[in-house]
């Protein structure tokens, strides 16, 4: 097994020719894989597949030359972190011999096994990996359009929206109301809205202590709930209020012009509104015909092959991965299993059953971390929890445990972004 340094060394020679040539070689022995989407799932898969079998010609199709990571972007909102620390490019992945097409995929021809790109060219594939992340259902919440997101940012895709919400928080006067609208399951990063409330509370407690955060929720329970509630009570008493579905928490419409967030019982007029809308698999999943009526993509958990279309795999947030949450760790974990499966299938082998893992860190404060972990295995075509494994950090743990998990959270981010992009 060659190590990472060897790969980086040999990758340099490839890089010179690796910047997206339209390889139109006739019949060659090298199989072709196209990966659409350069987030935690797609970028991991492209890179790992090249490492597993350097003979495979891999093209990673991604619209943005720079990836902005969502994990830890709540720290940017709280003024604890620069957005630049969230940004990663694809140079090292190209250096490993992966072709990069900085373009949008515009269509997929299942018969010809080609992907068409925004410049009019096409890419042939033997296997296609679709990793488009999430898109928002702009039709799902009355009043919440793409234009509305300029007044009421979702900040659920990191980047400009993160900075916009940060600006709104900075501009707010002390005593202002912040509303966070959390969607129903499934959605990207289940504990995300609550970590966000925590870190915004951390900022407000120090800078604008008369302010308040109300979380309007379309659910009656949420990820790491006991731990978050314990943390809010200890660190931010009276600052964070959670309104569950059963108490009228569901946001039914918004009106950006008047900054109104309406539920069945109330009309809130927040100074800052963060609306996290309902979601579905990224657009390319629909174009590829791999999304079902739910808007998400059913897969075979052994190989992450689509159950709807041949020769296409779906990984990351877009996939219906059973008990696995939509997290960066899960996406990375799925991508590695998928890469191994694709390499095996291209070589004519059979894929053995694999267990998958998720770990997910959240910060209640910069020095207060909590986690949830899970181990998953395929049962009757679904990924289910391995019984007796997984679970959350303990409640009533000492401050040292919370501080240790916060430090591990920071280490995790450096490690995973290093593995994918570094």
């Amino acid at each position, binding site marked *: 097994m060659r*190590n990472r340094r060897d790969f980086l060394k040999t990758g340099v020679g490839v890089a010179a020719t690796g910047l997206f040539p339209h390889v139109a070689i006739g019949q060659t022995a090298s199989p072709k894989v196209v990966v659409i989407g350069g987030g935690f799932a797609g970028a991991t898969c492209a890179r790992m597949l090249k490492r597993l079998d350097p003979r495979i010609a891999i093209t990673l199709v991604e619209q943005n030359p720079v990836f902005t990571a969502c994990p830890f972007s709540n720290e940017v909102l709280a003024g604890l972190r620069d957005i630049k620390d969230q940004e990663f490019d694809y140079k090292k992945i190209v250096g490993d011999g992966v072709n990069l097409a900085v373009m949008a995929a515009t269509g997929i021809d299942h018969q010809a096994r080609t992907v068409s790109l925004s410049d009019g060219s096409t890419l042939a594939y033997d296997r296609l990996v679709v990793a488009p992340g999430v898109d928002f259902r702009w039709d799902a919440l009355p009043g919440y359009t793409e234009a509305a997101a300029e007044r009421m940012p979702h900040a659920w895709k990191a980047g400009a929206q993160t900075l916009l919400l940060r600006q709104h928080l900075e501009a707010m006067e002390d005593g202002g109301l912040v509303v966070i609208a959390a969607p129903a399951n499934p959605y990207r990063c289940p504990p995300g809205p609550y970590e966000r409330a925590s870190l915004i509370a951390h900022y407000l407690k120090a800078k604008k202590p008369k302010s308040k955060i109300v979380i309007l929720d379309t659910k009656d329970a949420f990820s790491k709930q006991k731990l978050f509630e314990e943390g809010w009570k200890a660190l931010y008493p009276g600052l964070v209020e959670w309104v569950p579905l059963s108490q009228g928490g569901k946001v039914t419409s918004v009106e950006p012009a008047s900054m109104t967030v309406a539920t069945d019982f109330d009309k809130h007029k927040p100074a800052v509104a963060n609306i996290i809308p309902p979601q579905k698999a990224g657009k390319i999943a629909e174009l590829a015909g791999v999304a079902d009526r739910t808007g998400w993509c059913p897969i075979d958990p052994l190989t992450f092959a689509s159950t709807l279309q041949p020769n296409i795999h779906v990984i990351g947030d877009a996939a219906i991965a059973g008990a696995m949450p939509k997290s960066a760790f899960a996406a990375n974990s799925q991508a590695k299993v998928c890469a191994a499966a694709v390499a095996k299938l291209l070589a004519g082998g059979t894929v053995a059953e694999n267990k998958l893992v998720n*770990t997910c860190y959240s910060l209640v404060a910069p020095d207060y971390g909590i*986690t949830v972990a*899970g*181990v998953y295995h395929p049962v009757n075509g679904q990924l289910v929890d391995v019984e007796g494994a997984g679970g959350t950090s303990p409640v009533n743990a000492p401050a040292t445990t919370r501080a240790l998990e916060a430090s591990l959270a920071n*280490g995790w981010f450096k*490690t995973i972004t290093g*593995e994918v992009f570094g």
Partner: protein
Amino acid sequence: MIGRRAALAAVILLSPLAARAAEAPSGAAACSGCHAAGTSVDTPVPPLAGRHPLELYGALQAFKTGQRQGTIMDRIAKGFTDDELKSIAEWYGAQKE
């Protein structure tokens, strides 16, 4: 008990490592999400590659049985059979640092 386990593991682990190809055993691919490939990453989580398989297996068993307190490794190790943990320990032991 641990002594017997370790002895048993030693016998199994002494089988030729070369036979174990590049293919990662079930679950092993996930580890690198937290355990960096080298020491260059600033994290309290230790690297796994190149460590003695018995040391890795002992640690995984201790997490699984609760003899060693972890933050999340105790919760993860419980999801794997002893054979799976052995395979993971062997595979990481065979990786170059």
